[in-house]
């Protein structure tokens, strides 16, 4: 049983919790090999290694190294014997994919040419295995190019791809398979392998893991328990900054409402750092971090302010009301200008914005 990579979730604190749970339960499945996807480094190398050791996850990758030492971060291949056949399982990652981690202490990574890596490795693996199985985390097109270029791969499972293949595809001498994604499908290939390790025939069945497939009651119970844990975790994060400021009688109306009268200002501010504040958090995997959110959304500590659930999850980025206050209040009295000036330093403080100078910064958003 193999996985083509990207087992881990996105760079968000809650998804990191979910990934830990996923590693625990899939570890019990007894994977034979897991290829490395760029998502699998989202929480850093230390976290990945912790999951590997704790839950016996057989990750492998032949072309990701630390930029400094040039050492491979994972075993380049695995040898396993199943049904009397020795498999050499190799995994490669597309060098075009970006690896970003949530962990600031991680080393930089270097993804080397997968074709060169495979050409070097395959003769070596051949000495130990009859059949070579590639976990190609490169999507369909790059994988196809690779399989045409590199000889000696018997089977390939394609990852970093969003379409399932109901049948195998033969690319060069390789039987290529794909069953993706987000746990929606599971592929099964019944293979006849000859004494030289060559696939002589294959029958593929891709099953949609939908309501027609009965849930395992033990797993279902584990998931329900985990969901309760995740909710407690979410609330514990939220509790750090309770919504105690402002008034429950006022509402943040979002910039959409502001634009009905102030379209010219909105045009002026379009593309500013304020308007990408939440997106920038997401890029750093901090969009669930209350310490960061407080300055990257509207009214995080305010009643009726940002919440990570609808309807107030639309109050993302530093919209008008982040500086000017409740839209409902402004509609009535218009007394917000001085408050807006004072509001800058609540986020542009010594720690987060040491070079802040009101006059200089104001020029960037003058309106």
């Amino acid at each position, binding site marked *: 049983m193999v996985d083509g990579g990207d087992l881990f979730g996105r760079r968000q604190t809650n998804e990191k919790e979910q990934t830990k749970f996923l590693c625990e339960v899939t570890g019990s499945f007894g994977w034979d090999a897991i290829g490395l996807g760029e998502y699998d480094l989202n929480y850093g190398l230390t976290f990945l290694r912790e999951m590997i050791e704790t839950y016996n996850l057989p990750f492998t990758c032949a072309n990701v190294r630390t930029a400094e030492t040039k050492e491979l971060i994972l075993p380049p291949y695995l040898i396993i014997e199943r049904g009397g056949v020795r498999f050499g399982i190799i995994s490669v990652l597309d060098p075009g994919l970006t690896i970003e981690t949530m962990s600031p202490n991680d080393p930089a990574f270097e993804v080397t040419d997968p074709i060169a890596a495979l050409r070097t490795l395959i003769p070596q693996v051949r000495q130990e295995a009859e059949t070579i199985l590639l976990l190609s985390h490169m999507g369909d097109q790059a994988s196809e190019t690779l399989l045409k270029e590199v000889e000696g791969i018997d089977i390939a499972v394609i990852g970093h791809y969003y379409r399932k293949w109901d049948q195998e595809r033969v690319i060069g001498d390789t039987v290529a398979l794909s069953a993706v994604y987000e*746990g929606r499908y599971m592929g099964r290939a019944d293979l006849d392998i000859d004494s030289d390790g060559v696939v002589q025939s294959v029958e593929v069945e891709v099953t949609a893991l939908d309501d027609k497939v009965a849930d395992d009651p033990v797993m279902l119970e584990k998931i329900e328990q985990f969901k309760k844990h995740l909710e407690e975790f979410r609330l514990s994060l939220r509790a750090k900054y309770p919504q105690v400021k402002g008034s429950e009688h006022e509402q943040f109306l979002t910039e959409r409402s502001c634009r009905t009268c102030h379209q010219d200002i909105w045009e002026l501010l379009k593309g500013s750092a304020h308007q990408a504040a939440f997106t920038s958090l997401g890029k750093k995997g901090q969009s669930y971090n209350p310490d960061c959110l407080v300055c990257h959304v509207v009214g995080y500590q305010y009643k009726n302010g940002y919440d990570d659930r609808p309807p107030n999850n639309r109050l993302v980025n530093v919209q008008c009301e982040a500086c000017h206050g409740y839209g409902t209040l402004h509609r009535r009295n218009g007394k917000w200008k001085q408050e807006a000036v004072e509001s800058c330093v609540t986020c542009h403080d010594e720690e987060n914005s040491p070079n802040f100078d009101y006059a200089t910064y104001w020029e960037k958003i003058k309106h």
Partner: protein
Amino acid sequence: MAKFLRNRVWGRTLLLALMGLVILLLTNLDFRERIRLAQSGADQWKQITLIYHSDCKGKIEPCG
């Protein structure tokens, strides 16, 4: 009988028929050998079931 075999036409026909029989026999033997060899090869094939998946992306339930 001897007279019949001395007949040039019938004699050639019989010869051709005998040659055909020999060819058929040899060919049949070859087919049987091939089938036997193929069957013995297939006997050595190993049946493996590969379960595969990718890009779970941290999901424990479908989004919708």
